């Protein structure tokens, strides 16, 4: 298949018409003169069909799961079921307000309650909150809960350190420091936590150890029970980053592995769409120790009525407006009940099977730095490409020309020139084989062609250095730059 992306010379929206008028909008008589806008908003006045065509054309210059295999490691780009989109747009889901009386949103509360019960069974933790906006927001909220827990125990002045492996997602250390902790990275051994290094690192200062399992190298941390024991023996808590939960549904769960608290990403494991970067939906799942600190409100059931419970004196309070991304909860609920027990198990089994299969195939072209028994994703090193004057980046761009999305590149950083590949359960063997063939063509292409890639997309290789060196971040910047050029 020869792939060609649409390439429109589509003007920016502000170049589609005459410059907008600057005369002020008609004033609202009750608004004091000083408060009124003196100059109209600088934005074009366009007919609806022009706007629709503009954004439709832009959409055609964009890869999505629906247009391309999208094996981004750590991102779980599985097919987003259409039925979920349908249901989230029902008036009973979209046209309800968080400040409506509880009696008029019983269905929403019950759906939330049911989804929470499902996630409780999936994680093994008794209590769930759907409030976080996304995964990192869940991490942050959980760490605030950890702080509150140690404050209540009088240990806070001491327990200010969060430990993490060097394979951790960047959000982990960032969330920890935003929540007021210092962070310390533990070097991995063969891609997994080095238990001896962890034992040496834990202390009275340890608040928690943040871990993803399987980790970002796609490896299952087989010593997880010993890890839990080590952290707990030091009086610390164990945090589960649920970004990779898709590998272990029905096999193990964070509670069983010894974790105390977890966040999940409904936009990964439960297939809510990634939306070009968001919205996501984060989930907090907590064991007995941290459950009292979950954000308010919680959804409670009294008899057959559902209500929002604000009577949680130890709660950290609110971390976001309203109760979470309900529109995504509807989608995740539909996904979960469609699968059921066996379906979710099969999702993990097939994702892991796909990953091992594709890993074996691509392992013929590039070295795999760790053991080859992986879970839902695997890592390759593009280091040997150096000999031909080529980098992982070039390979990624060349893959785009094949009409497939590139894997995650340059993460995890402990692998030189890394590529991280995650082929989720919704991909058929045919798609995997097709990707392997595309990969083979790409890697065997000439260095010239690899450097020149991509050629088949709406643009060729983008100058990212220039973007950072001369930041032009809005139409206003472009206008100002244009003026500068014209002035001698």
């Amino acid at each position: 298949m020869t792939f060609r992306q649409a390439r429109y010379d589509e003007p920016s929206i502000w170049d589609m018409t005459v410059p907008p008028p600057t005369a002020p909008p008609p004033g609202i008589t009750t608004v004091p003169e000083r408060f009124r806008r003196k100059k109209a908003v600088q934005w074009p006045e366009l007919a609806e069909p022009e706007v629709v065509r503009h954004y439709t054309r832009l959409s055609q210059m964009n890869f999505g799961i629906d247009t391309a295999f999208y094996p981004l490691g750590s991102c779980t780009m599985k097919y987003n079921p259409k039925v979920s989109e349908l249901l989230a747009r029902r008036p009973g889901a979209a046209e309800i307000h968080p400040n409506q009386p509880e009696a008029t949103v019983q269905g929403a509360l019950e759906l939330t309650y049911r989804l929470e019960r499902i996630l409780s069974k999936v994680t093994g933790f008794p209590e769930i909150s759907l409030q976080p906006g996304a995964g990192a927001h869940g991490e942050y909220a959980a760490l605030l809960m950890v702080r509150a827990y140690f404050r209540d125990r009088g240990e806070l002045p001491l327990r200010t350190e969060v430990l993490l492996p060097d394979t951790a997602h960047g959000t982990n250390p960032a969330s920890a420091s935003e929540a007021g902790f210092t962070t310390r990275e533990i070097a991995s051994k063969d891609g997994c936590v080095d238990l001896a290094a962890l034992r040496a690192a834990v202390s009275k200062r340890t608040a928690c150890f943040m871990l993803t399992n399987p980790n970002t190298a796609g490896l299952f941390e087989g010593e997880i029970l010993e890890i839990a024991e080590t952290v707990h023996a030091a009086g610390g808590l164990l945090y589960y980053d649920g970004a990779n939960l898709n590998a272990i549904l029905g096999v193990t769960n964070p509670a069983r592995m010894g974790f105390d608290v977890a966040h999940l990403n409904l936009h990964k494991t439960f297939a809510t769409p990634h939306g070009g970067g968001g919205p996501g939906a984060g989930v907090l799942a907590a064991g007995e120790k941290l459950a009292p600190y979950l954000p308010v409100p919680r959804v409670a059931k009294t008899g057959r009525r559902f209500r929002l419970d604000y009577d949680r004196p130890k709660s950290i309070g609110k971390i976001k407006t309203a109760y979470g991304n309900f529109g995504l909860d509807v989608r995740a609920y539909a996904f979960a009940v469609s699968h059921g027990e066996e379906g979710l198990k099969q999702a993990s089994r097939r994702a892991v099977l796909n990953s091992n299969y594709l890993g074996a195939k691509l392992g013929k072209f590039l070295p795999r730095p760790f053991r080859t028994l992986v879970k839902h994703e695997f890592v390759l090193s593009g280091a040997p490409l150096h000999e031909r004057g080529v980098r992982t980046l070039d390979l990624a761009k060349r893959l785009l020309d094949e009409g497939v999305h590139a894997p995650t590149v340059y993460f995890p950083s402990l692998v030189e020139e890394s590529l991280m590949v995650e082929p989720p359960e919704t991909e058929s063997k045919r798609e995997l084989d097709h990707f392997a063939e595309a990969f083979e063509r790409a890697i065997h292409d000439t260095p010239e062609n690899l450097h020149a890639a991509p050629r088949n997309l709406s643009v060729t290789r983008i100058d990212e250095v220039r973007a950072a060196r001369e930041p032009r971040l809005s139409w206003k910047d472009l206008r100002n730059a244009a003026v500068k050029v014209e002035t001698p």
Partner: protein
Amino acid sequence: MPRWISDEPGEEAALLEALGIPSVDALFADVPKKARVGRMGLGAGREEPEVVHDVDKLLDRNRPLSHFATFLGGRIAYRYAPAAVDAIVSRSEFYTSYTPYQAEASQGMLRALFEFQSLWVELTGLDVANASLYDGATAAGEALLLCRRIHEGNRFLIPASLPWEEKSVLANYASGPGLRVEEIPFDARTGRLDLDFIRKAVASKEVFGVLADVPNGFGHLDEGVLDLKSIIGDVPLVVAADPLSLSVLEPPGEYGADVVVGEGQGFGISPSFGGPLLGLFACRKEHLRQAPGRIVGATVDSEGRPAYTLTLQTREQHIRRSRATSNICTNQSLMALAFVVYASVVGPRGLATLQTSLAEKARTLATALGGIDGIQAPRFDSPYLGEFSIELTRGNSSDFLDRLRRRRILGGHSLADPRPTAPKEPERILVAATDSVSEKDIQRYATTARAWSSAGGRS
């Protein structure tokens, strides 16, 4: 088994054969026995028609807003979105894409986000905007942290009239670095910020930022906000602005705001029980490298064509890790797309016309409620746009709102913090004019309120 998991006959066997293993179980051999679980305890999977039926049965137990005359507002608006917005947002090239790490493959989303950033810059009068945050409240939280990075001090001032949810979110964002959030009292008659309080606080040299919202938590416009910057000097000013109001109000950048945040849901995004929402964030150029979140920049490709890419990523968690300006990774890109499509379809004149019409409706309602015994409407003697507060001088908000609801009117929401530990507050209700209410609905609201009053403030 859902048909979304591939299960062609013989497919799994072929995969296993290629790996030389007898069963998928072999791939989980590294999970210790003691860590394994048996059944999760979930039900059997269901076919698509059954799932639709089940979810519809649940959703049918909700009363959608169209069932009522709706006067609910606050940060989350009930506002008509032209069908064109959802048509664009439903393009699966957009909604099934990931964060545009591979810029060449994602020009569509990057350009839409660049246009979104440009629009928020135009509305606010500031220099740079990011590509979105989770919601208005968390955007305010990020603004607080930004202020601390650019100014010394340990006290952050916020209006006492700010919605309780936002106060709680801000308290959480401040708690990490051990900062204090303090409430600025307001004038009992006008609801305006106590500028003397701010003056004194700033004189202590301990204040690293001041936040004011436009309109404020009571729905009113506080002219004092226009003078804030001259009072606080080099202390950063954060303005939390309703984007629709900016179609007719002075851009906060013009009166000295250093950061402008906002909740963008009202621009083409359905209320959906409070999420997904859209956090808006803009700041001055000099603080760009301290800003949180993804930012899209314009550049060129190797053949000189205009092109767009995520830029200045060294601020972000995946590069800077514990020293990142924020932990945010997933944002609200698709909602940002809805925002810019909405504004472009409605157009700047359309936005101003809409805001004007909501303001007229609100004034009609306030006038109609004005003379009723037991209701102070509006509660504050200050200008307002589409929303204002009322205060019940007898009875309570929940009885009042219940009575309205029985007449199929959602009359607003109580401003009180619902947590049992919260101090007792006056019976204040935020009332919003929405584009769906008619003159008749407004008169029905007033008639019902009069009946409530004649009944002695009982439901």
